């Protein structure tokens, strides 16, 4: 499975860049485009560590930053419900891009070794206003930073931090609303090696792990007021070369990614590869994480993951995204219907990219279930 490496890199890191393109009318005065910034560095590591071989994952150490590497990502997304059963998707991401390799001395207090960007999205189901904002700052004068033991990642007043007991807390406020959550690990993290997607020494340009289930509770503030919310979240973590992976595909392939949580306590991480130009045979691969934490990799003919119905056309540029998908894994007795929480969750990177919260309905082991997750769709722009 070593071939899947660069595409996973793309899927995960393309997701990181999304937060840099606000959809609200008034962009902030200072806007750092981490995508262009990272691509400007090219693939030369310039003193930063190269990702080779296996990583010896250790927690909570690896929750914190890895400044030896050029880029790093903390990407938290999930679905919350309030006491009135109203649903909200949410997303809080932090990206750290190293400016100078460790060991380089900088004298000034204003000197920064990195740039941090962060993005927040609150996506109510239905027609209420989407709240979206971003922050960016150099890691100087305490304006932004990432530390480990215990993990703290922040840009201005937006924070993601971890307690001694492993629980996470986030806090972020934007013009239209804000979010404060406490998150408890409900499942052990899954590392790149455990996912079994890469042969030893043939991984992608970065190391990664993900936390496939965090129980969330806290407070959501929108124009309508404050609400107590609870739900579940998924945390993606990756560090290494960011620049290579932001095109929404590699070579002749485009990749879609699905991070799904089922209400029976199981999760799925699925990747769908296809030819950019169409034709060929799309290759789906899913890692199924059972309620007891055991993982199972199903590929290609062991499952079907395909779009159904027509596609949604973006009012922005006409790009057509298939937003309704069906997943079937007969060997796991699983069938899922995947639909977006709302249609307009696209991003504008170099290429059109849809990345948003989805709702699930289906059956697993004969029982009906629901769930939620995130879907990233790339490579649908005609001009790419």
């Amino acid at each position, binding site marked *: 499975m070593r*071939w*899947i490496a*660069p*595409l996973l890199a793309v899927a995960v890191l393309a997701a990181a860049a999304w937060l840099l393109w606000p959809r609200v009318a008034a962009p902030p005065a200072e806007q750092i485009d981490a995508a262009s910034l990272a691509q400007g560095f090219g693939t030369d590591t310039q003193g930063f560590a190269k990702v080779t071989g296996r990583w010896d994952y250790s927690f909570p150490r690896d929750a914190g930053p890895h400044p030896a590497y050029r880029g790093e990502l903390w990407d938290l997304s999930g679905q919350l419900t309030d006491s009135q059963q109203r649903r909200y998707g949410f997303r809080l991401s932090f990206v750290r891009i190293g400016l100078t390799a460790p060991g380089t001395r900088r004298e000034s207090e204003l000197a920064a070794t990195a740039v941090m960007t962060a993005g927040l999205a609150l996506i109510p189901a239905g027609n209420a206003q989407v709240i979206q904002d971003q922050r960016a700052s150099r890691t100087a004068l305490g304006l932004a930073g990432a530390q480990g033991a215990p993990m703290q990642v922040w840009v201005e007043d937006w924070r993601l931090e971890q307690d001694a007991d492993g629980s996470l807390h986030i806090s972020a406020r934007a013009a239209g609303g804000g979010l404060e959550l406490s998150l408890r690990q409900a499942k052990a993290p899954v590392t790149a090696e455990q996912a079994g997607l890469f042969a030893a020494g*043939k991984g992608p340009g970065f190391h990664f792990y993900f936390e496939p289930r965090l129980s969330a509770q806290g407070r959501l503030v929108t124009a309508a007021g404050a609400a107590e919310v609870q739900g579940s979240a998924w945390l993606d973590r990756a560090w290494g070369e960011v620049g290579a992976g932001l095109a929404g595909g*590699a*070579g*002749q*392939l485009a990749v879609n990614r699905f991070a799904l949580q089922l209400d029976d306590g199981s999760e799925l991480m699925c990747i769908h*590869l296809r*030819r950019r*130009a169409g*034709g*060929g*045979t*799309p*290759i789906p691969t899913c890692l199924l994480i059972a309620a007891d934490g055991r993982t199972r990799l199903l*590929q*290609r*003919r062991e499952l079907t993951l395909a779009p159904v119905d027509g596609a949604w056309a973006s009012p922005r540029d006409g790009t057509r995204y298939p937003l309704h998908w069906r997943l079937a894994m007969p060997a796991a007795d699983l069938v899922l219907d995947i639909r977006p929480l709302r249609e307009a969750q696209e991003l504008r990177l170099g290429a059109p990219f849809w990345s948003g919260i989805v709702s699930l309905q289906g059956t697993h082991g004969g029982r009906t279930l629901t769930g939620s997750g995130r879907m990233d769709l790339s490579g649908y722009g005609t001009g790419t």
Partner: protein
Amino acid sequence: MPSSLITGHRLAALLAAVVALAGCDNNGSGKAEPGPIPSTHQRPGDPAAGYDALVNRSVVTCGLPYRAYLASTGNPAPEYSLPGRRGRNAELPYGVTAFDAPSGVELVTSNCLACHAAPLNGELVIGLGNEFLDFTGDPVMAVEAAGAYVEGDAETAEWQRWADRISAIAPWSMTDTIGVNPAQALTLSLMAHRDPKTLAWSDEPLMRLPPRPPLPVSVPPWWNVGKKHAMFYNGEGRGDHVRYMMLASTTCTDSVAEAREIDAWFKDVRAYLATLKAPAYPYPIDTELAAAGEELFRSECRRCHGTYGAKSYYPNKLVALDKVGTDPKLAEQAYYDSDRFVRWFNASFYGERSRARPALGYVAPPLNGIWATAPYLHNGSVPTVAAMLDTGARPTYWRFDGAEPAYDQAQVGWSYRSLKQGREQFASLDEQKWVYDTTRRGYGNGGHDFGDVLNADERLALLEYLKTL
């Protein structure tokens, strides 16, 4: 074998004979009878040029762009030395060849040696069929995923062409047991996509595809091709051998003109293959015991397998199914369910100098180098020569312990383990694929029971003699 089936075979043979005699054979679906296979004069060639072509040229005219090959494989260094590899090929493992496509893109593709050469005691032996290849993986995943490393219009066009072809035949390129080779099934599936006259490719098959899954076939050694009148187990592959040998070109050769160009140098490859000699048994031989074995061989085995040494003679004898008694599925499928492929072959460039004539039987092979070519029979179902000589010693379920097992000098073959159950005892395909299950369709290990009449001492002597071939 149930007597009704024997009657059925005889009846079918009789009908085939009648049809042939009546001259209704004008669509080329003739069948052959058991008995000696006539020889055909083979076109001469230059063996030295043939060796150079074998290791440097490609009969498959599509492949993965070299840059994508580098990126996706990490460019592994060749593990075995293969003399005469020139240019880029000197840097590549023996099973792949690089060449320049007419489009100008440098491509890498599998070559004949991937199946027809194998390591033996640390050296690469050309012509030794590789009995440890793993065709259980899904080629579609590999060829589609390789697209991640492909850039630019020219490379993309080449990659797509290659990926589309491989994907079209993928179901016939996959087996579920290590060691068995799908070459026959995948060649038939390629034919089904081509116009026999023009060789033009059609994405939609033009005739009914071959059955799935492929029946198990063991790769025979090359060093006997000079003696064999028919190249294949069931007596097919008569006439001009070059055209059969180059059938891999049906992957991407889309015109008769291109096929003719390949044929022009493939004559030399055949000439080289005809010079190959079997590797000598590398362990001690008890010459007295072997001499006693030779006496036994002359009385028990010579009539079908010929004689060896100073005055050697090979009878090219096709033995009827009900006489040899080995798994009939391969011969039956070629005889009863392959008329469309026989017609295709006979009407095509590949059949220009031959006539395909399947038979209900198997050819007793030459035994040169038999010590090295375990496992045995056309389907590789019998792990050792000792088990060939004693049906009671043949395991129903067995496996090798990895791709480089130790050699068993007493049993004459690779060391193996007998198992109590079949694949179902293992949860993962990684374990299941190693199990040779002789109860499955096409995998039967019965028949060739001619050694059962021997006593233990006689078998030992005969085994010792067979080591000398």
